[in-house]
C-alpha cells in the first residue's frame, strides 16, 4: 500500500524517536499487518509524548507507510487515543451505572470545584485532565477513578483532596 502524497505538501511529520521506533519495530513482529501496528504505534507515541499530535500522526503514517487518513480514522475512534494535549495526569473518571448509584456525581462535582475543570478540560497548571470513562470494572468499590495508571476506589471528597495533593507533590 503506497501512500500517495501531493508533491508540494511540505511534510509535517515529526521524526519518531529511536525509542519509539524500537517499540514499533517490536510490535511489527507481533502482528502480521502494518495496519494493526498503526494502532499500537499511536499508543506508543502517546505513552512517550502524552498525546498524539498532528506531527506524530504524520510521523507514524510515514514510518509505517500507511495512509494518514486511515490512521486518523482509527485515532479518533478510540477513547484512549488523545488527539489533543492533556495534562500531566489524566483522570479517567468512571461515571457508569454502579458508580452513579454510589454517588459519583457529587465526587465529580468536587473535582470540578477543586481543579476548576469539566470533562475534556485540563487544569490551568497543566497538572490534570478530566475525562469520563466507561465502567472501570471495580464496581464493588465504587465510586472509582484512575489517575494515570493507578486505580482509586471508594472515593470520597476527602479522598479526592488527598489524591490531588499526592500527585501534585509527586511532581515536585
Amino acid at each position, binding site marked *: 500500500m*503506497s501512500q500517495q502524497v*501531493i508533491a508540494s505538501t511540505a511534510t509535517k511529520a515529526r521524526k519518531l524517536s529511536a525509542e519509539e521506533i524500537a517499540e514499533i519495530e517490536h510490535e511489527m513482529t507481533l502482528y502480521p499487518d502494518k495496519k494493526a501496528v498503526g494502532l499500537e504505534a499511536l499508543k506508543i507515541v502517546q505513552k512517550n509524548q502524552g498525546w498524539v499530535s498532528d506531527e506524530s*500522526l504524520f510521523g507514524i503514517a510515514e514510518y509505517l507507510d500507511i495512509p*494518514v*487518513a486511515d490512521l486518523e*480514522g482509527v485515532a*479518533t475512534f478510540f477513547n484512549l487515543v488523545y488527539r489533543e494535549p492533556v495534562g500531566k495526569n489524566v483522570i479517567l473518571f468512571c461515571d457508569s451505572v454502579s458508580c452513579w448509584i454510589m454517588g459519583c456525581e457529587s465526587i465529580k462535582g468536587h473535582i470540578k470545584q477543586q481543579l476548576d475543570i469539566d470533562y475534556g478540560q485540563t487544569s490551568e497548571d497543566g497538572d490534570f485532565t478530566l475525562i469520563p470513562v466507561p465502567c472501570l470494572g471495580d464496581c464493588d468499590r465504587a465510586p472509582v477513578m484512575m489517575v494515570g495508571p493507578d486505580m482509586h476506589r471508594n472515593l470520597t471528597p476527602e479522598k479526592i483532596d488527598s489524591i490531588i495533593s499526592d500527585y501534585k507533590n509527586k511532581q515536585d
Partner: protein
Amino acid sequence: MAKIVIDGVEYEVNPDNNLLQECLSQGLDLPYFCWHPSMGSVGACRQCAVTQYRDEDDKEGMLVMACMTPATDGAIISLEDKQAKSFRSDVIESLMISHPHDCPVCEEGGECHLQDMTQMSGHNYRRYDKKKRTHRNQYLGPFINHEMNRCITCYRCVRYYDDYAGGTDLSAQASHHHVYFGRHEEGVLESEFSGNLVEVCPTGVFTDKAFSGQYSRKWDLQTAPSVCVGCSVGCNTAPGERYGTLRRIVNRYNSEVNGYFLCDRGRFGFDYVNSRKRLLEPVKRVDNTGELLADDEIKAVIKEFSREGTIGIGSPRASNESNFALKTMVGDENFFAGYSDSEHESMAAILTLASDKTFHSPSVREIEEADAVLILGEDVTNVAPRIALALRQSVRNKAMDLASESRIPQWQDAAVRELAQHERSPLSILSPAVSRLDDIAADRVIESLPALVAMGHQIANKISGSAPAATSAEHDAAAEKIAAQLKGAKRPLIVAGSSNGSDLVKAAANIARALHEDGEKAAIDLCLLVPEVNSIGMGLMAAEENSLGVALDKLSSSAAKRVIVLENDLYRRASKSQVDSALDKAEKVLVLDQVTTTTTAKADVVLPVTAFSEHEATYINYEGRAQLSFQVHQCQKMAQPAWRWISDAAHIDDVIERCCSEAPGFAKLRDVLPGGNPFIAGMKVPRQSHRYSGRTAMIANVNVHEPKQMEDKESIMSFSMEGISAQKDPSIMASPWAPKWTSNQSISKFQDEVNGELKQGHVGSLLFEKTDSGAYFDVPAATVQPSGKQLHLALSYQIFGSDELSARAEPIRERMTDAYVGICPEDAERRGLAQGDVATITPTGAPVVVCIRTGVKPGTALLYCGDANISPAEFTGFLEIEKSAARATSRGIANLIVSDFQEEEI
C-alpha cells in the same frame, strides 16, 4: 434460478444475489442507502428491512435486511408487512434527526436519493425537537464541495473512495453519532475519481463545486446522451445545459463501458465549451487581424479549397463525420492522419491487430473480469483513467474466488475483503517509473523503454517457445513469474498503448499471441490504449502511407498548395520547424477548430466548429466501439459541425450512411443510430424534462413573447419539454428518472437486472471484423545507447493537462502542473539539479521544471509536455537536460500527485 415469494407473488431470482438486489431487479420499490450496485452490501443503514417468513404457516415473520440476506430458493418475504414498513419509516426518522432539511439551497435537491427514500418510506412528520449535531466542513479542492451536516452516515463515500477506487485520503473518523467523513486535514482530494463521490453520496454532502457556481436543478437542465471526449475510453455522459452554457457532466450508465463511474477529467473538463476564447465566428486573416467572413466569402473559400492541390489533415479529436467529410472533400489520397508520426506507427500496428482473430479488445466491463494482468509501459491512470479504475476491480477476482471457496456470497463486501486481506489477482506493471496503480501490483519492474520492450518479448518467449526470443538477464526471474501467472490465468489481459511508440505495442501483441498459442484459449484480451476520443476512427480513415510527416513534406515541397486542418493543433503533433515550414510554404491554410491554437494563428481562414455538446457525432473508442453522442444544446454563435462547413450533406444521418458505405471498416457504424421507428407516436424525444421551468421567462430580457422552440431537424430529439420522454427508451435517455426515483439510482428501473444492460439499451457497435490471423512481430534490433549526457526519454502524461481541450477547463487548470522532466536523484545530482529547478531540454531548449522522483529508472527521463509548447515529436528517444537560469514557470509542479516525489529533509 430460485423461486421466491414476495408479498404473495412468485418471482424467479438469482440465488447468488441478495434480496435487495433481486427486489430491485424485479422493479420493486425497496428503499436503501448503503448498498450500491457496484459495491455490494455491508448492512449499515438498515433501510432495506423486509419481513421474512419461515414458511407459509409463519404469520409473524422476522425482520431481515434485504441487502444482507441471500435470495434463497423458497424464501417468503414481504415488503409491505406492517412491521417492515414501520421500521423503514423509523430508520428514516433517525437519519433525518440531524439532517438540515436545507433542500431548497442544496445542490442535490431534485435528484436526491435521500429525498426519494424519505418519501418512499413514508416518514413525513418530524418528532425530533432536540438540538441537531453539527459538523465543520473541509476544503477538498476545486472539484468537490463538502457539507457534512447533510450526512446520513451511510459509509458509501469511503467504501467507494477507498475500497473501490483505491483512494487513501478520505476516511471515516470519530464514532457514535459524531462519525465524520473527510480528509485528515483540509486539502485536495487526491483520487482521479473523486468526482464520483457526487453521485455515490445519496445526499448533498459531496457536490460538484464547479456546478455550484452556475447551479441549476436537474429538471431545469437540458440534456442528451453524450460521450466523453476526454480520452479513448468513450465513457457515456449526460451533460447538462442551461441559459446557453454547459453546466455540468454526470455519468450515464453503459453496462459495457463506464458503468456507474467517470474520471475527474471527464466530469470536470468541459468548460472550455463556455469559454470566451472559443472560436465562434468565421474569420479570414487580413494583415494580421481577423476579419469576419460573409456567407458568400465562405462559399468561395470552400470552393477554392475543393480544387486540386488541396490536402486535408484529419483529427483524432474530431468526429467520424467531420473526418469523413474532409476525406471526401480532398480525396482519399489527400487525406492525412492528424497525429504524430510516432503515433501513426503505433496506430498502424494497433489497427492491424484489431482485425486479428487472435486478440480480443476487451470492454471496460471485460477488463474487470481479468484474473491476471500485465501492463506493458503504459501509464493507464493518466492515459485512460476509467480503465485504471476497472483494473482495480480486476485484481479483486482472487478475493471473489476465495469467497466462493469459503461460501461467502460475493456481495458480502466487507466479509469478502476481510477474508482476502491482501490477496489479489496478479497484476504486473512494467514501466519506466512508478505509477498510480502500484499499490495493487503484485510485480513491478522499472526499466528504460528499450529494456521494457526486450522484457516483453522475453515474457512472450517464455510463454511460447515459438515467439521470437529476447533476453534481459536482469529480470529473468520476474519475466518467468509473469509468464507463469499469465499462462495460469483463466482470463489474462495484456495492456499496452501508443504512448511511447510501437515497439511496446508489438511486444504486448507477441505476449498475447504466445498465450493464445500456448493455451489454445479463445481470443486473448489485448487492450491497446490510444490517446484521444477518435484516434481509432481517424486512424481507420487515413491510408497507412498518409502520415502527418508526409503531409507536411508535401506542403514544404509545394507538392500541395493548400491545406485544410481539421480540429488540430499541428504544433502538438510535429516539430515546430516542420510545421512552420509547411504552413509558411502553403499558399492557403484553412483551419476548422473549436478553440484558438498556435495553428489557428497561422491560418488564412478559420471556421468555428461546434464542441462535443453542440453537435451530434459518432466516435470510435479504443476497442473499436462506435458510439453516438447526441447534441445537448445549440451553439449560441456561428460555430457548426466541421462536416457541415465542408460538405453539402444536409443531415448527419446522410453523412453516417455515406461513411458506412464508403469508408472501409465503418460498415457497422449505422448500428449506433436509433433503430426501427425511433419516433414514439410520431413525437420526438425531449431534451428537457417534463418539469423544465422558466421557458417563457429565460429570454424575457430579449423578447417577452416566447418564441417558438428551436427545431432540431436532424436528430430524434427536440429542444423542448414536449414529446415522449426517454423513459420509454433508455437508449436515448440522458439522465434516468422514474416515478418515486429522481436520483441516478433510478437507473435500476431501466436495467435488465441490476448491473445489467439497459432494457432497450445500446452499448454501441463494435466495428472491427475479425478476419486475419497474423504472425509474431520481430524483436527490434538493439537500440542505440544514450551517449554522453543523454537520457532515455519516456513520455509522461497527466490526467489533468495532457488532453488538449479539457486542459482549458478552469477546474482542471487548478489541478495542472507545468511541463516537467522526471529524473531519479542520481541523475539529478550528476547534473547539479535540485527539486523544482528550471531546466532546459535539448533539442528544443524549452524550459521545464525538474521533478526528482525516486521511482524513475536511472538513465531515463520522463517528459511531461504539459500545456507548454513542447511537441513530443521533437525528440527521438533521447533527451538532454541542463540547468537553466530561468525562473520557475507559472504553476510549478505543486499539483503533481506521485508517490515517489523526493521530499527534502527538514
